[in-house]
């Protein structure tokens, strides 16, 4: 079994008048050790909600409606660090107290814009030491040794631990946040839009860091992003989400070279490719906007924007089918 397996996860948000908005519906994927998964889609398609649901960090209005999040521990079942947790668990069935042994310890997340969330009046090193002391129950000296180790891992010189966040550039802050997420040696790192506000060169440095961490620590990575270029560079598998549902799920090579879902195809065309033989004079765009959660289309979520729809698309939601082993598509137009 895979390291992490999410099965049929659905998340609702409740509005003030009690209506349930379906933010995520029936999303499934699995993640093997030392592999990386790209979660792709436009703003508001449910990428971040899926991650928050998985970690049970949803805001008060959020409800997990159904699903399983099966996590298989790589460590010895009676490892003292985990306090003797069973090898395989469903994170959604755990008590909040048990859940804490997994969250941040086994699965860490760097939120979108987290590099702006560093406390401006505390030294960066002290901020990284905090979760180590909290989760590892170690003293300050051990914690600072670990901080130095972590900073080196992400390419920050130990002297910089004594500096404040404003003395760091955007790229350095992103590195510091990654160091903080790695503090408890997790198996899985979730990075939500880690490079969105960064320059291309700094983005390349951060992607390089992720690949390096993956090789060195055997880390599994879930990359949440709307940037297809970033995904193509470092991911092994890709899950394309649209309107809270899975549109297409396959290996990175299949998604980029044989995309079957019209949405995936359109996304590819909208992405600038400077190496394409004939540099197009204009980029393709996807007319229209993603559906708002309070007005989701009855049938296929992409139907209003789709260019190859038929009558059935407006009334019936397409099931996610395997067209080939490991290639899943939810589209009425795709058969076999």
């Amino acid at each position, binding site marked *: 079994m895979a390291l992490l397996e999410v099965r049929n996860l659905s998340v609702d948000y409740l509005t003030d008048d009690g209506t349930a908005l379906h933010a995520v519906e029936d999303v499934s994927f699995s993640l093997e050790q030392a592999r990386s998964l790209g979660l792709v889609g*436009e*703003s508001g398609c449910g990428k971040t909600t899926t991650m928050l649901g998985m970690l049970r960090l949803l805001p008060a209005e959020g409800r997990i409606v159904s699903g399983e999040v099966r996590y298989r521990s790589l460590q010895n079942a009676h490892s003292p660090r985990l306090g003797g947790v069973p090898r395989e668990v469903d994170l959604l069935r755990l008590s909040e107290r048990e859940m804490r042994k997994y969250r941040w310890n086994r699965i860490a997340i760097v939120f979108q814009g987290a590099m702006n969330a560093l406390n401006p009046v505390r030294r960066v090193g002290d901020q990284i030491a905090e979760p180590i002391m909290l989760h590892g129950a170690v003293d300050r000296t051990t914690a600072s040794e670990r901080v130095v180790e972590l900073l080196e891992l992400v390419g920050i010189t130990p002297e910089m631990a004594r500096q404040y966040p404003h003395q760091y*550039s*955007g*790229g350095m802050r992103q590195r510091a946040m990654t160091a903080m997420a790695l503090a408890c040696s997790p198996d899985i790192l979730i990075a939500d839009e880690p490079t969105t506000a960064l*320059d*291309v*060169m*700094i*983005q*390349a*440095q951060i992607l*390089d860091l992720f690949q390096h961490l993956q090789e060195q620590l055997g880390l599994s990575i879930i990359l949440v992003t*709307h*940037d*297809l*270029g*970033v995904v*193509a*560079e470092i991911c092994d598998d890709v899950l394309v989400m649209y309107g809270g549902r899975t549109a297409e799920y396959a290996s*990175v*090579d299949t998604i*980029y*070279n044989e995309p079957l879902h019209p949405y995936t195809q*359109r*996304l*590819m065309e*909208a*992405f*600038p*490719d*400077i*190496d394409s033989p004939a*540099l*197009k*004079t*204009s*980029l*393709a*765009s*996807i007319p229209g*906007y993603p559906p708002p959660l309070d007005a989701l289309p009855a049938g296929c979520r992409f139907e209003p924007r789709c260019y190859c729809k038929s009558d059935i698309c407006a009334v019936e939601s397409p099931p996610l089918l395997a067209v080939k082993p490991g290639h899943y598509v939810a589209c009425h137009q795709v058969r076999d």
Partner: protein
Amino acid sequence: MEQKVRRDEIILQVSNLRTLFPVSRGVVGTLLFNPRRHVHAVDGVSFSVAKGEILGLVGESGSGKTTTALNVLGLVEPTEGEILFNDQSVPALTHSRERLGLRRQMQIIFQDPYESLNPRQTVFATVAEPLEVHRLVKSREEKVERVKAALNAAGLKPPETFFDRYPQELSGGQRQRVVIAGALVLNPQLLVADEPVSMLDVSIRADILNLLHQLREERGITILYITHDLATAAYFTDRVAVMYLGRIVEIGPTKTVLSDPRHPYTQALLSVIPVPNPRRRRKRMILTGEIPNPIDLPSGCRFHPRCPAASDQCSQTEPQLQSVGANHRVACLSV
């Protein structure tokens, strides 16, 4: 595309532009008569833009691209150098009325449509405001007509339905269109677009870039496109100027620069552009570190501490822009 650019008609001419910002010495430093130090934001930049041309200014943060644009717009006073817009000197215009007249002809679109719009102003009020500032309309009807035309041109159709809406009711792409409408309402000749799509989703980016391109095609608006992303610049600029630490290191027609980059910095920038295909993953030429502090500039070539091809000479001699082909100039000693 090319024939729309009238090469003979230069709309903007920038020569030897330098902009230094003084660094505070502090009380002690002042008392000790420590030498005053400066941030060299722009340090010897020259270029010209033809009427109807789209020029891309490309570089990392701290390369001086935004300061250059602010100089051009007369929003930041340059320390040295000359900027001619339609043969009129921009920095020399001290009289506020003359400046106002000039500003009407050049407008800027900022990066973040979430922050550049007043959340308490309706779309109509936002787009109509420049008309009031410049006293361009005499009647309410005229104002409504011009706002309508601007919203239409920015692709917000039908325009009336947007009049009473507030920014929070709009998507990111729509907000950026409102910003563009606010610039278009004055019928400017020059549009400075400072990272207009970097905060937007990929699917919407294309829309905005295509809109800018269309404005050039239909109205002949000259565009100065500022970005850190060579990939989007590749799609719709005629020429690109790559900047590093306040200087232009390479300038030329976009196709030439992309297919035959000569400066190691341009080569590195090109190599790190994500390729949207895993089969073509390539070796990224990742530069270590970041742009150095523009207070203490490296000696010789500014890029030499990060340059993979630096030789001894590079730390001593500062390279000048030299022609390497048709309209293609590079500042590198090894070229």
